[in-house]
């Protein structure tokens, strides 16, 4: 039963009937979301931490804090999306020749939110957060080029994520999938607000990502420390650069696609409608102009992370640096030439299909080069099986299987057979989970000690690893089989008894994955609890190779008391070997840093208000939000900022304290890397 309450015009279409009261699963999810939000807010209030959060975090423009906030956002969204994945897997295992425990409509929302969240609000914030944290440190910069813009990007992304979370309570969300294909998403077929939620959440995120891309690209071009030539940058910075370039040039396609879809829906125009001259193929074309580069946006930074891992944990130079750089750039450029492979089955000529199919396969070459380069990096190294490296090994073995299925899909006649089936679902999870997600989890475990000054517990990390990897194989390998048999993706129900064992296996895998997720949470909790045992304040727990390890952990807000001078690749590793690491300065200078700014959070709130107003047709809210944002930006441009100076005394105090820890620390050999003995000073003699 729905409770109908007459909504005043000032609330647009919004009424109490938006509450998901008709399905226990949906109502439960909404309740969890509300209670969770209230719980967090209540806890912060009880602790009296709002002021602290506002001053030190929300208004912060420090790339390190912004990076951490991005990662927190990504982890929260990951938790939601993984649970949704489990629900979908359970439903498909249950709904064989019967209805299952959730409705078809609800299932539609589940794969749409799961896909959209995983891509836009998990993968993107995660990689943006990691790049934010690590890249400026690696190139020897004190911050990104445009710190305030950085904060604005974060808050716009967060606003988009908030909108998706709100849709859990003021339902429903779209059922159009993460790709939102028209004309299904046109008003005529999706009259509710669901698609509007999707449009505005994605638009907020894509604006944020475009700005982020610009910011990172300029930072890498213009803010490198002296001597840090492009070809001396750690590979992670290269992948960050290529990802940024992809963001800059691919995001506009998404913005155009969603904007035109919105014009269709709001103003009755005819871009993608099936009448009035509209053409739905134009939508598919626009979406994949973005969508394909997007999958490389989310995987390239992971490639960068793995490059760092294999070299660090093999205690060896990265094999084939130049070919890795070349491969990365080739992938970035090629990824603009293959988008049609997502719609081989739309009916265009065979020679077009063939041309795009071949272009797609070409990407396999540089990717293969990377894979071999990583193996060769371990070759003749001294490999240490720490948790971050384990993710890397699992990635290598698993990713090539996904690559294989990708190549199969790139053959148009083969694609005709398995397009839109669970074979495709298996392929892309086979890329996204080992590629994007394992890379990001590895990055989190690798750089966590840098950000917080203590290591994560290895044991729980291994448990998480075991669950995730086993869970992955169980959950997704069966889907290849089912796909070859023609089981369509996005099926709320299944009508083939023979599929049952495979779907049960897949459900079991999903359960394991959720356990893996829980293990990650436990790992964090236990590590915080035992943080004193795992402190690595000196800053270099893994015998690191690049400049971020040359600072204390966590690094001071100004990153480097003196900007380092770089003389080659693996800058910090060389400094350590030649005894020039940790130079003692005889004189400290004051450092000018950007001041905190409230414009980011304000634009986030105003953006959210605009989006929410647009979703529910609350005119005044959307209008005020837009006007507010415009005036906020103009007003902000009138504020003269002189920056904030960290005095030389304070720099000296910070640096002296760190140097004291340095002197007190015992250099630890790799033998004791994961011991409490490791205080973050690497023994370079061995």
């Amino acid at each position, binding site marked *: 039963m729905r409770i109908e309450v007459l909504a005043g015009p000032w609330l647009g279409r919004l009424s109490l009937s938006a509450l998901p009261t008709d399905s226990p699963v949906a109502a439960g999810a909404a309740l969890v979301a509300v209670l969770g939000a209230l719980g967090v807010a209540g806890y912060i209030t009880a602790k009296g931490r709002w002021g602290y959060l506002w001053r030190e975090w929300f208004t912060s423009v420090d790339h390190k804090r912004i990076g951490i906030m991005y990662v927190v956002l990504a982890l929260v969204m990951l938790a939601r999306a993984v649970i949704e994945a489990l629900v979908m897997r359970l439903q498909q295992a249950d709904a064989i*020749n*019967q209805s299952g425990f959730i409705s*078809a*409509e609800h299932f539609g929302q589940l794969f749409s939110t799961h896909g959209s969240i995983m891509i836009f609000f998990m993968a993107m914030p995660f990689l943006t957060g990691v790049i934010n944290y690590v890249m400026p440190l690696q190139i020897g910069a004190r911050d990104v080029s445009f710190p305030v813009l950085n904060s604005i990007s974060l808050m716009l992304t967060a606003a988009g994520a908030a909108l998706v979370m709100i849709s859990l309570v003021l339902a429903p969300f779209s*059922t*159009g999938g993460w790709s939102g294909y028209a*004309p*299904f998403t046109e008003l005529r*077929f999706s009259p509710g607000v669901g698609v509007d939620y999707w449009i505005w959440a994605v638009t907020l995120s894509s604006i944020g990502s475009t700005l982020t891309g610009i910011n990172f690209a300029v930072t890498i071009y213009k803010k490198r420390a002296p001597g840090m030539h492009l070809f001396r940058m750690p590979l992670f910075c290269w992948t960050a650069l290529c990802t940024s370039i992809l963001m800059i040039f691919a995001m506009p396609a998404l913005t155009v696609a969603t904007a035109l879809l919105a014009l269709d829906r709001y103003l009755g125009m005819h871009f993608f409608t*099936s009448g009035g*001259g509209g053409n*739905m*193929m134009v939508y598919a074309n626009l979406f994949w102009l973005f969508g394909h580069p997007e999958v490389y946006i989310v995987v390239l930074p992971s490639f960068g992370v793995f490059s760092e891992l294999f070299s660090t944990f093999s*205690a060896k*130079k990265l094999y084939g*640096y130049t070919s890795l750089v070349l491969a990365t750039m080739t992938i970035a450029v090629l990824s603009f030439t293959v988008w049609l492979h997502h719609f081989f*089955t*739309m*009916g265009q*000529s*065979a020679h077009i*299909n063939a041309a795009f*199919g*071949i272009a797609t396969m070409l990407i*396999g*070459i540089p990717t*293969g*080069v990377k894979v071999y380069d990583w*193996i060769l990096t*371990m070759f*003749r*190294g001294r*490999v*240490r099986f720490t948790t971050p490296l384990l993710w890397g090994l699992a990635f*290598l*073995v698993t990713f090539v*299987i996904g690559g*294989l299925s990708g*190549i199969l899909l*790139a*053959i*148009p*006649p*083969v694609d*005709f*057979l*398995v*397009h*839109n089936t669970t074979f495709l679902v298996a392929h892309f999870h086979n890329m996204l989970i080992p590629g994007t997600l394992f890379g990001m989890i590895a990055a989190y475990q690798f750089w966590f000690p840098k950000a917080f000054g203590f290591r994560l517990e290895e044991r729980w990390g291994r448990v998480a690893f075991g669950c995730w990897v086993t869970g992955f194989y169980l959950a997704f390998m069966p889907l290849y*089989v089912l796909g070859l*048999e*023609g089981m*369509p*993706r996005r*099926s*709320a129900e299944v*009508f*083939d008894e*023979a599929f049952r064992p495979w779907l049960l296996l897949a459900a079991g895998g999903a359960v394991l994955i959720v356990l893996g997720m829980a293990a990650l949470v436990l790992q964090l909790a236990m590590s915080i609890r035992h943080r004193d045992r795992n402190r690595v304040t000196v800053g270099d727990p893994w015998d690191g190779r690049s400049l971020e390890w040359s600072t204390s952990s966590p690094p001071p807000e100004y990153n480097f008391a003196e900007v380092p001078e770089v003389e080659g690749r693996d800058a910090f590793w060389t400094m350590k070997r030649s005894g020039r690491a940790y130079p003692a300065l005889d004189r400290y200078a004051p450092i000018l840093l950007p001041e905190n700014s409230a414009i980011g959070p304000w634009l986030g709130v105003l953006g959210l208000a605009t989006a929410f107003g647009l979703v529910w047709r609350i005119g005044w809210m959307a209008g005020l939000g837009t006007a507010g944002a415009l005036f906020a930006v103009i007003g902000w441009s009138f504020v003269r900022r002189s920056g904030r100076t960290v005095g030389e005394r304070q720099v000296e105090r910070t640096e002296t304290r760190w140097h004291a820890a340095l002197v007190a620390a015992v250099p630890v050999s*790799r033998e004791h890397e994961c011991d409490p003995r490791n205080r973050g000073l690497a023994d370079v003699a061995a």
Partner: protein
Amino acid sequence: MAIFGGGSTRPSIQRGAQVQDTSTERHAKRTASRAGLAAMPTRAAIVAVAAGPVAAAERQLLVQAAVLMLFVVVPVIVLTPWVAWRFRRRNRRSAYRPGWDFSRLLEVLIWGVPALLVALLAVRVWTQSRALDPYRAIAPGQGSSAAPLDVQVVGLDWKWLFIYPDQHIATLDTLVLPVGRAVHLHLTSDTVMESLLVPRLAGQIYAMPGMITQLWLRADRPGDFPGENTQYNGSGFARQKFVVHAVDADAFSRWVGQVRAGGGVLDARRYRQVARRGVPAAPECFGQVDADLYGRIVAKYHASSQVHVSTMASRATGRMNDAH
């Protein structure tokens, strides 16, 4: 013959349930002709065998390419753990060259071998994309010299309508085909984008409103093959299944005769009922079909342009004639 079993609905799909807008539909169904219905084929185990040349060629290509790829993928799967273990830190016997980061020979290999493989694959892609172009006519099977069978396909929410323009009959959610005869499907949709797939006969192609796409296929052995829509189109999506019954030529003509004699009429009014959103309670056959129905369905989306309507309609029917 199974397909003449009449009355039996597919036991496994609870059609109509849970989906709105279907009550009138279901009612209408009861009075409609029941010629040519059969149960959804059920299988005990997974089998991925093709029953026609198109699917066979596509599957063969898949297997070939997969095997070829294994040559470069298996080494990775084997080498990764092996290298990692062989060069583990504890193993002091293995060489340690922290500065080694380049080898010209290896460089040539790691770029060259994948490039060679891609070149090989590219040749196959180029030729096979053309050979297996869904629009490309296929020859009749051995011993069958009949002209291709034209079928007009209309994707609806959430069912498929098949019109046999030359036989002047139509079926809903069931497709009966003569074994060995080439079949030329002309697909459109009267709702959102859909995608028709019969995994054992041929790969898929989209069906889009106001447009006509084509797909050629042929069944080389008699049997019942599941077919479906694979492009999500709303809450009834998962139930949009149908069965292809491949029967020998005689059985096919007998079936056509039977449908003609006993099937209902598919005129504009009846079509409107059929097209309404919902999952039909059972497949259905129509013994008489408005000749220009398909053309009108396609032309509908060009309605605001008067010139266009007629050309689209005539083109839609015209193409049928060209095909012969």
